[in-house]
């Protein structure tokens, strides 16, 4: 029987992506650590901002216009410290919903002042991810909330199935029953909020569309203009972004190559908006986005690591969780799996920072070595993802509840 539009709409929102609380919790830990290790604005920048004259305060139209100058460095450093605290709470799953919201809001506040220098960096997704996943179930397990029995903090509604409409407290009621531990684990695994993934996909798809559409108006599809090459020159000469493959690209004279990049960029960016309505094409386009960012980094030395926590949401976190279960099979290990995952990531990220401090790969440009390492790793994963999305296996494979 043919589904009605309303059924299809519901199915897209609620059934496109299914991730267990365990998988979501691993994503939460990954997100918090990614921001803490790599994506926090540098403290030294706030000292610079605090010392800038009032005449250099150029807020973009919006809420930052409520201020007339940069606040003192001590204020910005205080917000930075609060953000660090909320990220640690998010990492540990402590008051997870509130710490998620606070993380997004504080990040917005800091970014608002940074962008009042006169340039917006379009990294909104770093604030959006914690805010929308505050309403998922990413703090329900592997968290202090769960350990303290405060599941109501992150339980959400269990809203994936129609019969759970608005029944957010069912889980808490079950917890209080006899043999709570065993039943809780089972219940926890069953009910999750998956709509934040669809909402995030909508945001990403729309935002890519807004990147592609002006290019069409600007003349990128005109065969006599190779706009990508023009942008490459604009990065190479005035901004001195000359590392990695930039110097080699300076000598690439093939008109067909540069025109192909112009057309492929528009097809990818505009096409993303259509891709989001199907989970497998969403994942496919996420992989292409990683390849796109990687090639932009190699040629133009622009590493846009901020977006990668949003892209990472579409990894098959249940697959990672299952692997963790295989490694730590005993039920006694259950609460510790998250901590072990976090510790493992922490060690890996520390190692990357240690390598990065040697300044490898970078000579002239403003990139940081760890950005190159992270994007190169993501590129390898994306190539694997493109293959596994096609063959429906492994890290990007089909989830049990995936409708497509």
């Amino acid at each position, binding site marked *: 029987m043919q589904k009605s539009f309303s059924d299809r709409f519901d199915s897209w929102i609620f059934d496109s992506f299914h991730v267990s609380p365990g998988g979501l919790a691993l994503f939460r830990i990954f997100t918090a650590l990614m921001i803490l290790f790599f994506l926090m604005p540098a403290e030294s920048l706030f000292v610079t901002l605090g010392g800038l004259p009032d005449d250099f305060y150029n807020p973009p139209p919006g809420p930052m216009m409520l201020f007339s100058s940069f606040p003192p460095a001590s204020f910005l450093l205080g917000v930075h410290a609060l953000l660090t605290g909320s990220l640690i709470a998010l990492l540990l799953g402590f008051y997870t919903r509130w710490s998620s919201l606070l993380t997004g809001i504080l990040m917005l506040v800091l970014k608002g002042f940074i962008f009042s220098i006169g*340039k917006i960096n379009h990294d909104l997704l770093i604030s959006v991810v914690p805010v929308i996943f505050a309403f998922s179930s990413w703090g329900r397990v592997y968290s202090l909330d769960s350990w303290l029995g405060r599941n109501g903090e992150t339980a959400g509604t269990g809203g994936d199935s129609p019969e759970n409409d608005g029944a957010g407290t069912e889980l808490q009621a079950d917890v209080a029953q006899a043999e709570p531990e065993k039943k809780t684990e089972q219940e926890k695994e069953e009910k999750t909020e998956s709509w934040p993934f669809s909402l995030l996909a*909508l*945001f990403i798809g729309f935002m890519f569309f807004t*990147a592609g*559409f002006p290019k069409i108006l600007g003349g990128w599809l005109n065969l006599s203009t190779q*706009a990508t090459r023009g942008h490459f020159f604009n990065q190479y000469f005035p*901004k001195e972004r000359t590392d990695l493959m930039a110097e080699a690209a300076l000598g690439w004279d093939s008109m067909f190559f540069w025109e192909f990049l112009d057309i492929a960029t528009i097809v990818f960016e505009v096409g993303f908006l259509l891709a989001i309505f199907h989970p497998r094409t969403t994942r496919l386009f996420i992989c292409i986005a990683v390849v796109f960012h990687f090639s932009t980094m190699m040629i133009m030395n622009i590493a846009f690591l901020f977006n990668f926590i949003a892209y990472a949401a579409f990894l098959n976190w249940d697959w990672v969780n299952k692997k963790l279960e295989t490694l730590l099979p005993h039920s006694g290990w259950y609460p510790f799996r998250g901590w072990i995952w976090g510790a493992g990531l922490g060690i890996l990220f520390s190692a990357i920072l240690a390598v990065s401090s040697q300044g490898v790969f970078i000579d002239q440009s403003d990139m940081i070595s760890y950005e190159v390492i992270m994007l190169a790793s993501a590129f390898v994963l994306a190539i694997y993802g493109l293959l596994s999305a096609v063959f429906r296996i492994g890290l990007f494979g089909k989830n049990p509840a995936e409708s497509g």
Partner: protein
Amino acid sequence: MNRKTVKRIFIFFLFFLPLQYGLIGVVSLYHSEPWPAFIFPGFKNVYVFEADTYAIVDLEFQAWCEETEETVVMDPLSLFNDIPRSQSQGFLRMNFRDRDKAGGFNEQAVNWLKKVAENRHPGHRFTRLDAVWTENYYTGPSRTAGADSTHEINRITIPL
């Protein structure tokens, strides 16, 4: 959050996203781009001047030292090296492209600029700072060596 609320959130965003995009287009015509907004950068420019020639706008600062009667040329990335490079183009555009804005800097801003310039070049006492905007043309194979011609398009003088 129940399913009805979630559906309402989605319906809201399905209308809001294109609306805010249209609004951004209108506001950007008269002012800079609004923030926060659900958009990625458009990079609309093609930079093509004519066949096989790319025109890239650049900026350099020229500081005049009266005592030594010397003009010191400064690269903006080095002069303002505390500003992140990803922000620097916006910082330079917003502050040094418009004659009214740069010519009308208050005493605090002028003193700050003087201090920054003199810190980068110790021993100099600068009395004037020129922001010189140029359009650089990159043509044919010789472009690998840099711009093959340059045209000054704007010069803004800031007395220090």
